[in-house]
């Protein structure tokens, strides 16, 4: 389905011969046009690319890196950029892929160089500091005041060099994307308070007013605590350094779903010319004739990077001679933040499809008074650790007592297998806590079919949530026993519980007739083991053989000892529970709740 090429042949020449890859992708992410360079990069023939989904996330505001095959046949790195266009009367995307392999190699070499040099500087700095400070300390004999003064200049500058080396390493790692932020849920107010209090003695000594106005609340955020403290130390350190008299004011406020933290001072301020450059690297302005430690010129650049890695923004306002206000904002804690970091990290490692499942427990409020918050927290922890132990393809993303987000690769287990495992886990853990069935809703999203950006996937997981209870009641149950009254009894009970589709069979063969006649595999089989003709064991054996039925959950009804040994082969493949005859209604209800 080629796009009508009604362009002039000159433009065609440009596009066909460009060394950059050019593609046109429609709003559904399907590739409608591909030029030869793009085909080379994607390592496929143009025919194999047209009308297939574009294999990378489509982001208008950011360039995305991906692996490609270069024109010389070697593997390399490419950069994708997206522009919005109008194509054949509809909105579409113009996507370019550029070979940036050389740039990436250069960047890596540069980072390695900075890293090596920084490390090499560390050992000589140690010897320098130790030898000079031992003389200064009088260990090698008396030292007069003048000598001490000169030696202290040396020590001070060694410390400054040390700081520069550490900060250089820090920022080069951050820019290389090598910094692993350890984010967790935390309270911004508490972090700001703790880091501000450290400065109180210093400000008192310098006779500066220190005004810390923090609301008596908590502002939950998703941050790497040490790094935010680093930002606060930088801002407060600067305010202290550049303020001779007056006051420093720290405030935190909530605005539009973000938390804003500002550090203002009545110091010397920053000129109009220098203000736009204040966050650039090595911009230590000539005016810094302050006593005390001198900076490296990297502090604000590092702070900016840290704030940006937290999806925040940092800004500066200032008036020369009057003072400055530095403000940074960070988003409020939300599952989206956790999901976004998780998905972005995952997409860095692989493009394989995966599922996100979002489960919301609805009646926690009614359970909590009876059970207690600690037990509920414990339930959350249990869920987290069980999910972690389910195998490398399943991972917990976000676990709060009333909200669970779990991730699963599309292979090796199917979506249904993952969903079943997840739901059974939630039901089991919460049944333990609440001693009752819990009601929950769930949403799900698949990458890449439902979307390719973490925000999109989250929106889908969140917007279209389904009630598990209602879904369960619509499932198909087949009750099988040669004793007709018994099957009817169970059927009546199940319908009383709310199950809408309960059918009956009276023999083993009846199971397969049902499957054949209705062209449907039941969601749950309630099965008697001792039946004339085909026994329950045989039924289970035959179900195991077919790919369509091998995962069917089975509830075995038995008035006799079930020969579990005969079933061991099959138990690992699907859930099998047993219930004794005569069937107790509450027990039946619970078992069906778990199995289906």
């Amino acid at each position, binding site marked *: 389905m080629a796009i009508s090429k009604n362009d002039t042949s000159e433009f065609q020449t440009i596009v066909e011969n460009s060394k950059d890859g050019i593609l046109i992708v429609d709003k559904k992410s399907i590739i409608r046009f591909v030029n030869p360079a793009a085909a080379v990069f994607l390592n496929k023939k143009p025919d194999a690319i047209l009308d297939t989904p574009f294999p990378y996330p489509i982001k208008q505001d950011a360039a995305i890196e991906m692996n490609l095959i270069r024109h010389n046949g070697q593997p390399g790195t490419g950069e994708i950029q997206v522009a919005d266009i109008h194509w054949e009367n509809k909105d579409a995307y113009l996507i370019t892929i550029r070979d940036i392999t050389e740039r990436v190699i250069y960047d890596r070499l540069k980072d390695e160089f900075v890293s090596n040099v920084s490390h090499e500087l*560390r*050992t000589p*700095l*140690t010897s320098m500091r*130790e030898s000079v*400070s031992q003389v200064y300390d009088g260990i090698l004999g008396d030292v007069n005041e003048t000598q001490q003064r000169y030696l202290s200049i040396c020590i001070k500058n*060694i410390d400054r060099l040390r700081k520069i080396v550490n900060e250089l390493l820090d920022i080069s790692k951050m820019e290389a994307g090598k910094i692993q932020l*350890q984010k967790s849920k935390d309270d911004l107010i508490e972090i700001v308070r703790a880091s501000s209090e450290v400065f109180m003695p210093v400000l008192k000594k310098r006779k500066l007013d220190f005004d810390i106005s923090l609301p008596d609340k908590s502002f939950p955020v998703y941050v790497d605590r040490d790094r935010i403290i680093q930002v606060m130390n930088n801002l407060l350190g600067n305010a202290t350094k550049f303020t001779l008299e007056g006051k420093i004011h720290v405030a935190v406020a909530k605005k539009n779903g973000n938390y804003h933290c500002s550090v203002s001072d009545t110091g010397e301020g920053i000129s109009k010319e220098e203000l736009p450059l204040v966050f650039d690297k090595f911009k230590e302005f000539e005016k810094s004739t302050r006593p005390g430690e001198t900076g490296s010129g990297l502090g604000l650049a590092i702070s900016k990077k840290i704030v940006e890695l937290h999806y925040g923004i940092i800004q500066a306002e200032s008036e020369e001679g009057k003072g400055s206000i530095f403000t940074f904002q960070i988003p409020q804690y939300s599952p989206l933040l956790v999901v976004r970091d998780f998905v972005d990290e995952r997409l860095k490692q692989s493009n394989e499809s995966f599922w996100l499942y979002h489960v919301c427990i609805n009646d926690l409020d009614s359970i909590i008074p009876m059970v207690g918050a600690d037990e509920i927290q414990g339930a959350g922890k249990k869920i987290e650790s069980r999910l972690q132990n389910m195998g490398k393809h399943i991972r917990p993303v976000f676990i709060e007592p009333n909200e669970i987000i779990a991730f699963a690769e599309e292979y090796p287990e199917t979506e249904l297998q993952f969903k079943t495992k997840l739901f059974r886990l939630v039901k089991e853990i919460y049944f333990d806590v609440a001693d009752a069935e819990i009601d929950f809703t769930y949403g799900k999203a698949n990458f890449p079919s439902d979307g390719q950006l973490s925000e999109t996937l989250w929106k889908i997981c969140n917007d279209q949530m389904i009630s598990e209870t209602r879904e369960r009641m619509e499932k198909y149950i087949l009750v099988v026993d040669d004793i007709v009254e018994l099957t009817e009894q169970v059927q009546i009970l199940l319908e009383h519980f709310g199950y809408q589709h309960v059918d009956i069979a009276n023999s083993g063969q009846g199971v397969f007739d049902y499957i054949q006649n209705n062209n449907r595999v039941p969601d749950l089989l309630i099965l008697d083991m001792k039946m004339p003709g085909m026994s329950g064991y045989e039924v289970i054996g035959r179900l195991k053989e077919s790919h369509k039925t091998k995962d069917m959950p089975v509830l075995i009804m038995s008035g006799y000892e079930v020969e579990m040994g005969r079933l061991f082969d099959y138990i690992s493949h699907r859930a099998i529970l047993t219930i004794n005859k005569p069937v107790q209604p509450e027990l039946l209800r619970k078992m069906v709740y778990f199995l289906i």
Partner: protein
Amino acid sequence: MPKILIADDDADILMLIGSRLRANGMETIEVSDCNQAIKMAYAEQPDLILMDIRMPKIGGVKAFDCLKMYSTTEKIPVIFITAYPGKEVEATVREMGAADFIAKPFTTEELLDKINRALKAMGRYHSES
């Protein structure tokens, strides 16, 4: 008076740390490679070992493993000196059972503080600092 074994292949660092510790009321034994470190640890039974991670012959980590194998030396707290600090190094060091680590370049206060803490943890408290 606590006895500290210092192992570092850089002669300047070795001398400087030695003189600093002695000025703070500690006895020191200085060695410049791993084999010497193991030998002296065994012979002298120091209260603490300060060991550079990167040293010639078998390297600080292997030397540490050796010390862990002998009953007479396995309990001696070891503080690693490294020019390459980072969360990974920190985790490795703790996992291995070292008492602590200190990153170059360090200040005197840091060094003495870590030594005192490690000694205290072992019940061999040194009151001067």
